[in-house]
């Protein structure tokens, strides 16, 4: 019997299957499997970002709402650098011209990220809808990023 057996992978159903390929991913794109439990805000942010990447369109009369690769990558990088553990879920939205915006609200405080198509990002603190401070994020934005978010949650 053994001599007449053929490997099951020789069946027609497997003929179209290609060998597994290496997946190129940046560390910032890798997230724990338990993300929805340990950091629901991050799960929500990545989910919204994915939706914007998938659904973005060029809309005549409004603007190009497709996300650029640079804007997407920058947003993922920013999310990966956040050290503030307890945050509400942010709101993500397209910025016309292929950018992306991200906003957190806690009480009357708000932190708003505007990432342009190039990946350049401006972050602003607002309280009662009035600007408190803003900055253009540098190459290594970790300190500024977390400083703004700590200010946000210190309102609790």
């Amino acid at each position, binding site marked *: 019997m053994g001599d007449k057996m053929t490997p099951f992978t020789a069946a027609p159903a497997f003929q179209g299957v290609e060998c597994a390929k290496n997946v190129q991913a940046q560390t910032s794109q890798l997230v724990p499997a338990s993300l929805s439990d340990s950091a629901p805000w991050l799960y929500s942010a990545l989910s919204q970002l994915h939706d914007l990447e998938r659904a973005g369109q060029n*809309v*005549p*009369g*409004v*603007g*190009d*709402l497709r996300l*650029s690769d640079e804007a997407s990558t920058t947003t993922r990088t920013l999310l990966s650098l956040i050290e503030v553990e307890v945050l509400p879920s942010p*709101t*993500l*939205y*397209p*910025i*016309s*011209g*292929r*950018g992306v*915006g991200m*906003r957190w609200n806690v009480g*009357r405080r708000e932190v*708003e990220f*505007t990432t*342009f*198509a*190039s990946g*350049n990002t*401006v972050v*602003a603190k607002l309280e*009662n*809808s009035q*600007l408190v401070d*803003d*900055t*253009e994020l540098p190459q290594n934005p970790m300190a500024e990023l977390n400083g703004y978010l700590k200010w946000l949650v210190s309102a609790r």
Partner: protein
Amino acid sequence: MPDDDVSLQGEAVELVRVLVDRNWIALRDDGTERPSSGAFVESTNEASCFILAETNLQLIAARFPGKKMAIVTAAAARAAGFIIARDEEGGDGIPGHIVLIQRQARPESKQHVRLARQLANMARVIQAPELQDEEPFQ
């Protein structure tokens, strides 16, 4: 670079920005709606709007059903550092299309975002009109 139409001035000239994303709308402290700064920031520095007096809100409502619109004056746009350039082709068949171009601040700077926020804070939000029984806009 499109030219500034200097005839578009003052409080009487109103400009319409279609708020296609629901997160382009925020609440003021008094509970009224306002556009967020994101509604007027543009990576390419050409934010699409329509001149209220020259456009056709029915066409906008048909193209963007259920969407709200931000109304700002030409005076507010100019005070926030924008020029107003006509761009009929950009309306894709809807008349009165213009683009707001930021000239006071460097594109992608924090001043650029500040001025977009200033303009957004001056805006009022309206609902697009109910569609009349006409042929759908193609």
